[in-house]
Each structure stands twice: as C-alpha cells, then as structure tokens.
C-alpha cells in the first residue's frame, strides 16, 4: 500500500492535511496524537496585522455541518513567524503549509514575502475568499481578474509553490482556477466555505454576530466533489481538495475526482482524532477498492 503523493515537488507520506483554521498551530492536537503521522498541516489563516476577528457568537450548528464566522482571528504574520513557527517545529517535523489572507493585493504579497523566508513552510496557500477592500468588497476569489492579480503578485515575491485557495461562492469556479493557473499558480486548493446563515428564532435575529458565516462539514461534500472535478478538468496543476471530508472513503472520492491531496477541516473540530482515524483507515479502504498506489487514482473517475 503506497499512500505517498507529491505536490509541486514536495512528497507527503499521505495525502491527509488538516485544513487552515481548524487546526490552530497544531498545539491542541499534539495533546491527542503525534502530528508527524500527517501528510502536512495548514497553519491558521494569517494576515499582515493581528486580527481579533468577529464578535461572538461565531459558531452555529447546521445539518451535517457548521457555520463559522471567526473572521480570520490570528496574531499577524510577524507573530506567526517569530512565535508560532518555532513552536510548530517542536511538534511537527515536516514542512507545513502557510495559509495567507489579505484585503488588498499588497497585503497578500507582503505576507507571502515574509513566509517565503521560512524554511519550515513548504507551500503557500493563498486564501482568496476574503472581501477585496479595493474592489467593492466582493471576494477576490469570485472574480477571475482579481484572482489572476493576486496570484501574479504572490508569485513575484516567492519561490515556494503557490496554491490558490478558491471560494465556492461563484458560478464558474473553473474559470477562476484557470485564471490562477494562467497567472502562474503551482496548484489550486478548494473549496473554502459556502456562505450560509442561521437565525435565532427566539431573539428574531441572525444567530451569528457577523450575520452570515461559512458552511463546512459533510453537507458540502457533494459540492466539493463537483468543484474539484470541474477544476481538475480545467487546469493541469495539482489540486488540494477539501470540503466535508470525514472518512477515508471521502478521501478516495475527492482524489478520484481529481485531488492530489486532501484537507480535512470541520471534522477535526468534531473529533480531534479525525485525521489519525482517516490515516489508519486508508490502507483498508484502498484494499477494498483495489488501489495499490494512491497516486494512481488521481482524477481516474472524471476523465472526459
């Protein structure tokens, strides 16, 4: 059973990567298990400045999923590099994926340039689901043009592989992915959360202080499979698939849809052992579906 996969020259022992924002900087999970069993892991979304994020409540329950409106709480890129990365090094010996958010193209580039200097960081994942303050607040990721610009700006300042993380809140995700590839992206990550909302019926107002939040968890899995497939058909660069993955079977499904690696998000919050359980179950499920080498199945079910 060979579970190795390769992302832009970086070979991972297995395709399982905890998703940004659901794994902090790994510390809380290191209390439960040895993080080195993971393929890699994604750091919390990082911005130039420290951010508190949105007021509480930030979390709401949904059928087979959850809403979050954390709002990119993070200590800012300098603190992440100076304080968090050295701590991460103590609990995880493989390269990590830095996740970068920004509200302007400059901010993306500036944060990327700083992470470029960190040996520990293997891949930059650029989250373009944030509202673009310079273009009326629509997310960078819903518009191919701004997706192109962010990609280009980040590629200029780093030699690390750049993976653009796309928002599913768009009518044509393949176009956005293609724009990123055209601008030089080394890979595509998808999907981020779907915009959702719940109400507090008693108080007759939105449950989340931020009004809307991002939907993730198994509920979004069929959408993730579809989008991974669409993007896989549109681009040649590798894809990190995610969205509702909760078991080894889901990993196989996203990979057959075109993902080279798979991030696991909300499942970590529900069950801190979600990733180790998936990694443990993988060989058995591979056997069940007669898969010798995991990298063989990438996109096998959606060839046109």
């Amino acid at each position, binding site marked *: 059973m060979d579970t190795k996969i390769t992302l832009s020259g970086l070979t991972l022992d297995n395709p399982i990567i905890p998703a940004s924002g659901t794994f902090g900087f790994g510390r809380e999970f290191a*209390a439960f298990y040895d993080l080195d069993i993971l393929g890699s892991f994604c750091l*919390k979304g990082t911005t130039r400045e420290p951010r*508190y994020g949105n007021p*509480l409540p930030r*979390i709401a329950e*949904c059928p087979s999923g959850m809403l979050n409106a954390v709002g990119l709480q993070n200590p800012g890129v300098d603190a992440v590099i100076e304080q968090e990365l050295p701590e991460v090094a103590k609990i995880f010996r493989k390269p990590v994926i830095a996740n970068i958010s920004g509200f302007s193209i400059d901010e993306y580039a500036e944060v990327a340039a700083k992470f470029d200097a960190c040996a520990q960081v293997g891949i930059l994942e650029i989250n373009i689901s944030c509202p673009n303050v310079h273009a009326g607040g629509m997310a960078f990721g819903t518009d191919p043009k701004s997706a192109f610009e962010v990609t280009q700006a980040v590629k200029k300042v780093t030699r690390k592989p750049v993976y653009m993380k796309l928002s599913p809140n768009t009518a044509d995700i393949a176009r956005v992915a293609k724009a990123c590839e055209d601008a030089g992206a080394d890979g595509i990550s998808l999907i981020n959360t779907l915009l959702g909302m719940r109400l507090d019926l008693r108080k007759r107002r939105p449950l989340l202080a931020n009004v809307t939040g991002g939907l993730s968890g198994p509920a979004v899995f069929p959408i993730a499979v579809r989008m991974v497939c669409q993007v896989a058909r549109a681009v040649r660069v590798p894809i990190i698939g995610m969205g509702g993955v909760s078991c080894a079977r889901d990993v196989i499904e996203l990979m057959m849809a075109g993902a080279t690696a798979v991030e696991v998000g909300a499942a970590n*919050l529900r*069950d801190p052992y979600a990733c180790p359980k998936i990694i443990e179950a993988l060989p058995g499920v591979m056997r069940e579906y007669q898969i010798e080498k995991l990298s063989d199945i990438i996109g096998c079910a959606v060839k046109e």
Partner: protein
Amino acid sequence: MPKSVLYTVETRKKLTHDTYELNLSGDTSAITKPGQFVNILLDGLFLRRPLSVCDWDDGTLRLIFKVVGDGTRQLAKVRPGDTLDTLTGLGNGYTLTGRAPILIGGGVGIPPMYALAKAYLRKCVLPRIFLGFRSPDDAFYIDEFRELGCETAAAYGSTLVTDLIRDRQPAYDHYCACGPEPMLKAVAKMCRGVGELSFEARMGCGFGACVGCTCRTLTGNKRICVEGPVMRSDEIDWEAL
C-alpha cells in the same frame, strides 16, 4: 489535558419538568478542577454539546442539563448502558481561592457549583450557596447543597440572586458565579473584590482549535473553552461581550 472518553450511562434522573441528571462511568482522570466541562457527541448532530462537570470522582461523572434543543432533547432520552462519546477535562475551572467564599449559580449555571462546593469542603472551607431559579417548579439541588452542610438560599422569578445576597449580607472574601450573562454582570457589579465568573459560548470544538469562542478581555483575547470558561471578574470587558 483534555481526553477523549466513552462514558457509559449509569442512571438518568428527571430533576424538574425540563432538567435531568446523568450519572456516567468511565475515565475521569482528565478532570482536575470544578468548573471544567465536557463536550458530548450526539447522533445526527454535528457539533458536540458542552456541559459542566457537576460532580466527579475516580471513575464516575455527574452532569445536569436542561432541555433546550435537539441535543439536550436527545440526551434526555439516553438509557443506562448507552455510551457517550465525550471530550473530557476541558477548560480551566475555578481556583478555590478564599476562606469564606460565596457560590452563586443561576439555572443551568448551578451544576458546576456543586463540584465547587465539594472541593472547597475538602479544603475545609465552608462556602455559602446562592441559587437563582425561574420559578419554584424549576428548582433543583437545593437539598443536595444543604446535605453538604452548606447554608443555601434560593431566589425565584423576579427576585434575583443579587437581591438575595443584598438581603442576607453574607460575610465573604471571594465569590464564584455561573449563570446567564446578565446575572454574571449583576453579580460582578454588586459583589466586593475580585471574583470568578464562568461564561458560555457557542463552541466549534471545545478544546482550543477553532477560536470560535474567543472573547476580548481586558487582558487580551481568551478562548472561553481553554482560558475559560472561568474568568476573573476584573478582566471582563463587559462592553466587548
């Protein structure tokens, strides 16, 4: 250190029309302080449900909860022998400060006060108990606190626990409270000195990973599930809550 434990339901008891007591058995070694909580996975629900530790010893755990939605409704139906997938030993808990503490609980904020009272007693400190209920029909555990030997007073409906404390004028050098936010605020405003307050928040994980529960305080951002739920009254930024 939090731990993942499969507890077995030993008994379920109805305390009031909507409030239940569960006695569970299983590994409790992760629980070290009163005021900590557990987080329970329930069938068909995505997020775990946080409940305060009401009492515990080596191998047993008691919870008390009020039915308010799908999760607690399901929990009210468990049967002896059922198992509950639980993260246990979560949160910071109370510090057991003081020689003459008053413990103030409102509604489902009362359960942690029971373990707290017992912990004080083990230190040979006798706390006084003030409990607030919506109505006499909603009352529970008054006798249980008295059986511990604690002087226990209860307020109902429009009489608030703070009224009770104002009336009784207890001598105290520390206070601990858990209950709805307006109660905590009233308590902090009225009580002398620095006390400990336990807060609630909607939680994505309960063990510090999602920062879904982070609140601003005067001493910086705090995750209610790790740096809380118990916080010092003088660090609360009441405006920011």
